[in-house]
């Protein structure tokens, strides 16, 4: 048998490509990562906004996710401030979503006849997005490899129809499939010998640099200003875009909500937010997200009928 560098068990990128191909075959549009800093794949408008309104939607994409507080200066081989999520959203959630998910594991080389896959209760909530859903964490041989959620509410709006959301933790899944214990040791490109590029080769330096930034150097006053600016801009766009029962700028407004959320995450990492302030920041972002959700419902993609 010849060695296939693109096989999911041989390379990180092979895993991503396999998942993309699998979900493309299920009719998903394969999107690229959203070009903004977000804390999770759910923030991508392809999930947050598209989960709202009556229109069917199927999408899959990789989303680089930034959690400034999780940085460890590259010293912890499994804890990163930047990592990848593979996100799938199917609206309405199909009856066979669990089977589709299990088949995707099979596609990346997890043979269901020898691996123990389990759906363990885990309800999901995002206070900043005003979103929650019920579902499970999916365990493979005792390791959590995915999150499986039926969205009930997003941006404060009840989801109808309900979307099914799958989130694969790519690094962890790849570590399991490649059989390595340290994230930095993941084979990224599937090559061997001198041509081999590891996850650490790609990201270790970034982890070090961003940890310095996140924890020590990010300018607090500037971030606070950014937060206020984004908040104001979001509100301004929500007002300006609202015309005759329709909305013309829901998406740009939502970008500003994302910006505010990331500024908050950085401030949090800098350790300058007290417990009570924290709550108030979260509420402010949620208000923005709610405004954007309401605006989205007044757009064509949000299901508003032509005036």
């Amino acid at each position, binding site marked *: 048998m010849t060695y296939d560098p693109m096989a999911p068990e041989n390379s990180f990128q092979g895993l991503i490509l396999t998942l993309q191909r699998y979900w493309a075959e299920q009719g998903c549009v394969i999107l690229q990562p959203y070009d903004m800093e977000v804390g999770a794949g759910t923030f991508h408008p392809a999930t947050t906004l598209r989960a709202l309104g009556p229109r069917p939607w199927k999408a899959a994409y990789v989303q680089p996710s930034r959690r400034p507080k999780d940085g460890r200066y590259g010293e912890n081989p*499994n804890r990163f401030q930047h990592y990848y999520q593979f996100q799938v959203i199917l609206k*309405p*959630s*199909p*009856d066979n979503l*669990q089977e589709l998910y*299990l088949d995707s594991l099979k596609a990346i080389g997890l*043979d*269901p*006849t*020898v*691996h*123990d896959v*389990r*759906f*363990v*209760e885990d*309800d999901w909530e995002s206070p900043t997005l005003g979103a929650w*859903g*019920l*579902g*499970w964490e999916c365990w*493979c*041989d*005792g*390791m959590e490899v995915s999150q499986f959620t*039926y969205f*009930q509410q997003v941006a404060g709006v009840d*989801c*109808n*129809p*309900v979307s*099914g959301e799958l989130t694969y933790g790519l690094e962890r899944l790849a570590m*399991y499939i490649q059989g390595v*214990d340290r994230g930095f040791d993941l084979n990224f490109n599937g090559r061997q010998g001198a041509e081999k590029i590891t996850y650490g080769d790609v990201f270790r330096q970034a982890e070090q640099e961003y940890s310095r930034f996140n924890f020590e150097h990010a300018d607090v006053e500037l971030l606070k200003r950014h937060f206020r600016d984004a908040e104001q801009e979001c509100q301004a766009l929500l007002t300006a875009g609202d015309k005759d029962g329709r909305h013309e700028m829901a998406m740009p407004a939502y970008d500003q909500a994302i910006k505010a959320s990331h500024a908050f995450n950085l401030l949090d990492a800098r350790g300058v937010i007290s*417990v009570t302030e924290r709550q108030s920041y979260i509420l402010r972002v949620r208000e923005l997200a709610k405004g954007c959700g309401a605006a989205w419902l007044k757009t064509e993609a949000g299901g508003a009928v032509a005036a």
Partner: protein
Amino acid sequence: MPDFLLELFSEEIPARMQAKAADDLRRLVTDALVERGLTYEGAKAFATPRRLALVVGGLAARQPDRHEERKGPRVGAPEKALEGFLKAAGLASIDDAVVQSDPKGDFYVARIHKHGRATTEVIADVMPDIVRGFPWPKSMRWGSGSLRWVRPLHAIVATFAAPQEEAEVIRFEIDGIVSGDVTRGHRLHAPGEIRVKRFDDYVDSLQKAHVVLDAERRRDIIRADARTLAQAQNLELVEDAALIDEVAGLVEWPVVLMGSFEPEFLEVPDEAIRATIRANQKCFVLSDPATGRLANRFILTANLDAADGGAAVIHGNERVVRARLSDARFFWETDKKIRLEDRLEKLKSITFHEKLGTQYERVDRIARLAKELAPLVGADPQKAETAARLAKTDLVTEMVGEFPELQGLMGRYYAAAEGLDPEIAAAIEEHYKPQGPSDRVPTAPVSIAVALADKIDTLVGFWAIDEKPTGSKDPYALRRAALGVVRIVLENGLRLPILKILILALVNYIYQGYPDIDEQHFENLEFLNRIELIKNIQAAVTSEMRSPTIMQGAERFSLRKGGNALVNLIYFMADRLKVQLREQGARHDLVDAVFGSSAPSALEGEGKVRGDGGGSSGQGAAPTPEPSPQGGGESAPASGARQNDDLVLVVRRVEALAKLLATEDGENLLAGYKRAANILKAEEKKDGAGAFEGALDPALLSDPAEIALSGALDVAEPAAADAVAREDFAAATSALGALRPQVDAFFDQIMVNAPDPALRANRLKLLARLRRATRAVADFDRIAG
């Protein structure tokens, strides 16, 4: 008689919800059937991760027929009335009704025969509402539907089958799901459709399809197989009932396997290993009888017969366990690098409660209180103070951050690793105890001092800001804290002036300058007059604490009248005590009777109590901060709270009373007492309350029976009072019990309400005296019978 089989097949139901859901299903369905006149012989419900099932056995095939008569209007009534009657009774014409005569005239009567409906129809009728209204703790919608269930509901089996007969499918539809006779087996092993007829073949088919329907059986399999695997390695399974329940709710087909990890990880304390493996992996740990410690093995429960015999599953689980244990070892090693004492500073940044300050301030209060309590419980004050200061420091260790359930325990390990005094190390763990009614109570003196201080500080603080538990809401577990205090005091036989300790705890808050403490709740410490209170507070305030703030606080609290938070708190503890005593079999009314009695206060016997306690208070260094309010003149009005704050005495009194009432003398005395009390009550209504409380006139005693009772009381009353003062409650109750013959004779031979008013008043005074005498022990009014 036919059986009804029901299965609701869904995506994975959370393990913690399964048992209750099965129970709810059984209750809802059988209630609905009974309500509709359908009886049954038995019903049993089951749950697996993917299905709820119910069998109702011995059901009637139909509802019984019903006959009823409905009386209508008078013959010759207006057309409108007749129409209304026909419509209501469901008759086509008035000819279908019969005419009946009664004294008021001739009336139409409809005779309605209602044929009972087939049970299958009734079931089809009631099921949709039961499913739609099912009481899941959390439910959800999915796809484009509107139905709510715990997770998406996919199929419903509903069959009705009499023995020897074809099974019938009961059809109904709920949001597009049509009931039928098709289910599925294990997700991997038997994903195809399975047709079922009745309960027996249902269970068999599922078993063949790798589904063990009964959770009890799944638990048995897991337990038995785990033990077998353990024994094969000469190890013992560390039993964990809650974990077995959970794991049995995660699998339909339990396959028990054993994994191992590197022995180096055993450097980590056993409890941390167990917490790691249990919380993250839902696996069991094993102990090695040879060492008494954990073994480097664990038991996992898979949900399949793996094609490779479980090799991949074990390998995968081992990898995760290894990763988690290396985290745990990392926490253990790094935590030990910082001394507990050096962690205190970090507690300043953790809020305990926004109105009650930081954890640091809390620890400061607990340490002061523990030091004060130490001599009363025979502990070294310095050790108690140190233990209290360190008691919460493990909250800021990595290990406890990861596994909050290890709080206290890790503190103990870290304290031991630092070489701290073993009594201090033990107290750090045990100060949280008892956690619940069945948890162990600390018995080591230093542990007792810190455990009491911790709980009392919390109780007083939350009472001070009026955050008492209400109904089922008790977010700060204050009931548990109060019960903890009660149990620690009783089980260690501690003689503590609780009320004064509460005041000390309150003083700690005042000292920290908590103006947020709601003053109005303390406005009226009615039970203490202000002199006594100021004395208490001044005595509690050690010289280092003496400051204008605290003196003002003392002044403030003592100048008001009305509120009574601390008294309320004592009553709250008394309630816990009642619950506790009742659970131990004491009669509820006796507990009430003792709490209602006007026996002298333990507080006043302060000096003596301390002397009895033989505490190590005389160590010289610390000045005795306790007051000794001996000047009798300033004592406050009587109050149950302050008299009964010595819980040990309350219990002894209850016991003595129970003994007395178990005797014939006691029983008759009680009867006599009740008679006396009733007469007094009636006569006091005429003459005014307290009319007979004065001293009687011996010269007016004429009948031998009343002379005898008076004489007996002359003996019994001081004897009972004296015995109570000696805390010899058996003697007190038997002194009262000795009154019985005179009481009996009195009621036999004497007419209380004599025509001569002076004689009547004198006799009533005699009865009032009897009433007072019994109060020394208990309020007999509150005793039932």
